[in-house]
């Protein structure tokens, strides 16, 4: 009887998780569709075009996969932080600064050392830069209890400006008219898979999310971080070094975000132009939440989102919808995520 009870409990729990994930997506798509109708566009055509260009066409699908690479690294960084109860919303600054530094040193380095060594050094450099950019929020949080949401956002604000300064003054390529760093030659970038445009960064991104998922759920280190995140007082009570773990969680999270920057530069762009800021971090935050910090779930949502981004770009051009309509969908998704979460919480309280 007990096992029966547990089984029923698990099944309804699963069903509920499914609803919690699918409901916000459906609601966002429906309301987004209504907005398209108001704009005088055909929502069915828009969504169909998104799927067709983002998923069903071969070039579109490749572009989608390429887009997942930086998103996956950023997502991995967010999973570490969020599971440790740290709201590192500064991934964009960490990402961008790492990207700029990688772009600046990549090309010159490639002339003196082998290509594989340059790529390794660039990844290490990106991780280090990201981690350094999280030091101030980590110190303020660990030693003075300052809310990291504010400090990390501020650091991103500063980081974006600093990146521009770096591009325009010390790392500017004099050979170009637009301020940008020296461009890494296409053949020196991350190697590609077979005959596609998909580079190895996609594989690395997948691995980073899986690694982080394993780290957080199957190791003592991850469990320690989770305890700190879920109840810092309990962590002190259990004798954990909360301060040290806070630094580590910040560092690891920011290092992964920085590596996301490296992947984007070494895999796709080869250079950073002034005022370039894809702001992937804040786009990935709702996805990681939707997946409840679960690695596999996050991969699925990142893929879904990449389809939306790539397909959305073509669909917008074709139907005359502004390109940032994808952002409207993300905004709606976040809103409905919060509402569904709230309703679920209320429902749980009433039933237990």
């Amino acid at each position: 009887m007990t096992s029966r009870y547990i089984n029923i409990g698990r099944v309804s729990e699963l069903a509920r998780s499914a609803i919690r994930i699918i409901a916000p997506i459906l609601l966002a798509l429906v309301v987004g569709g209504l907005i398209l109708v108001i704009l005088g566009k055909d929502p069915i055509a828009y969504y169909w075009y998104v799927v067709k260009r983002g998923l069903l066409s071969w070039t579109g699908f490749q572009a989608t996969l390429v887009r997942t690479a930086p998103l996956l690294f950023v997502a991995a960084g967010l999973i570490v932080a969020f599971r440790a109860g740290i709201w590192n919303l500064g991934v964009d600054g960490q990402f961008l600064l790492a990207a700029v530094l990688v772009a600046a040193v990549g090309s010159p380095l490639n002339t003196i050392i082998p290509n594989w060594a340059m790529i390794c050094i660039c990844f290490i450099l990106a991780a280090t830069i990201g981690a350094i950019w999280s030091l101030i929020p980590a110190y303020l949080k660990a030693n003075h209890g300052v809310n990291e949401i504010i400090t990390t956002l501020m650091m991103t604000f500063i980081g974006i400006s600093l990146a521009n300064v770096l591009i325009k003054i010390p790392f500017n390529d004099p050979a170009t008219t637009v301020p940008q760093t020296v461009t890494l030659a296409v053949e020196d970038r991350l190697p590609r898979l077979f005959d596609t445009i998909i580079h190895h960064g996609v594989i690395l991104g997948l691995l980073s999310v899986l690694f982080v998922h394993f780290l957080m759920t199957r190791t003592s280190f991850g469990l320690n971080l989770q305890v700190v995140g879920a109840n810092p007082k309990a962590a002190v009570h259990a004798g954990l070094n909360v301060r040290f773990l806070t630094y580590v969680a910040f560092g690891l999270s920011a290092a992964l975000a920085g590596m996301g920057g490296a992947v984007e530069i070494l895999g796709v762009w080869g250079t950073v132009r002034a005022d370039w800021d894809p702001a992937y971090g804040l786009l990935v935050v709702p996805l990681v939440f939707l997946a409840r910090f679960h690695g596999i779930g996050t991969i699925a949502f990142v893929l879904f989102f990449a389809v939306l981004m790539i397909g959305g770009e073509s669909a917008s051009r074709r139907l005359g919808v502004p390109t940032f309509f994808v952002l409207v969908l993300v905004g709606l998704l976040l809103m409905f995520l919060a509402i569904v979460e709230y309703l679920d919480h209320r429902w749980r309280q009433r039933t237990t």
Partner: protein
Amino acid sequence: MALSASDSKIHHTSAIELRGISKFFPGVVANQDITLDIYAGEIHALLGENGAGKSTLISILAGLHRPDAGTIIIGGVERRLGSPRDSLLAGIGTVFQHVLLAPTLSVIENLMLGGSWKNKLDKESARSRFAELCGLLAVTIDPEALVGSLSLGQRQQVEIMRALWRGGERVLILDEPTSMLTPQGVIELGHVMKRLRENGVAIVFVTHKLREAYELCDRISVLRNGAFAGQINPDHGSGMGEEETIEQIIRMMFDKEGQSDSTVDNGGTNVAVRNVFADSQTRSISVAAKEVSTIALPGECGLSAVSFEVARGEIFGIAGIDGNGQKHLAEVLAGQRDLATGQIELDGEDISVLKVSERRDRGFRYLTDDRVGEGIVSDHSVATNLVAKSIGENPYWKYGFTKWRAIFSFARRQIKKYDIRTPSERTSIGRLSGGNIQKALFAREMDDNAEIVLLNKPTYGLDLQNIASARDRIREGASRGITTLLISTELEELIDLADRIGVMYQGQMVGIVEANPGSENRIGSLMTGASLN
């Protein structure tokens, strides 16, 4: 107990009459049939142990709780106090134990808070009301000073003003007003209370400190186990002397069923007290605190020069009213808090600088009283919580990798052994009842490698059955040779379980008493500060 002999003195007008007030919470009778008159122009002390029902009673008067039975008569009319606003309108002002002022606002702004939002801030009339109250209380406070810059005593005066600001002219309730004050602050508070009494205000003064009650108050009512236990009139001029009065109050507060007057002096003769400590030949000291002091933040009670020794296998009780330094003592012993001076020894070895985990490795276990706040990680499973203090250790981790299957099967065994009622070992522990959470914490702390356990209020808030099982567990642990330090606010429990009892009062260990039936009064007078001068 016929102690109301002094009622017949003068004719008093009642400010409030409580008639048969009862309040039940699930599983607890907080107030039972309390009948009490508060007279205009008197300072009325309300005394009682933790859990005696004082807080519930003043919450009812403040409009925070509604009584389940009984009536409240104010000025001869029966009133229903359904909300704090009703209480204020009825002329009852309350000053709670913890200061509830906004430190970044000025005194006058704090007093104007809670006014009608429709009206413009009217500083002029507020200022004249402020001057009036300053005159009434005979205090001087700068109305433009930020509350954060005032001393705790001054903040309390502002709190009293706020209670009087709207209403409070009939009855003023002060909930443990002296607990945060310096001796000078207590004297000033005494003046303020007397001024108000002269103006016909009835003051209900809730306290644990007998001497204060005796010195400041006109009448003293004692509650015990939620019921009215007696009343006394400290006749400052004649009749009973101070010592005699205080002794009588202690008896009302702590004696069993109020009929054990005769057993006070000969207690313990009929019980074979297991006393590991007394035999100085065979005893070995397991834990020793030497002149331990801590630094306290405002609102906390730190330790000053606490010393004691506990023998191996002994149950050492630590008694005291809540908030007399027990929390700091527990945390300093567990390694969660730094000590300022002094030394803590485990088996003769100085462990003062060892961390929580290092003390745990030496067999020290701490069962916290803040079960939900720091004891458990409520969103995580029962299984995780059962191993939360040994993350990374064998046998459930190898090279840092978690062996979840082993943890789950270990958890299932513990759930069975400790009778933890949970749907599954994977259920979030936060969804269990308080009693089952406590069982899980017992399971975590009383493991096979435990040598010294520090239990902080282990039965607090549990139902009778869980209390019994927790006590059995403590006894069983001691019989296995575990040294037990038992912090409790319940004297009956300490006397039942402990060999010796150290009593905490204002951060000091003011005495160590052999635990036997009949030592209640001695302990009671130590923990209320009555035996200090």
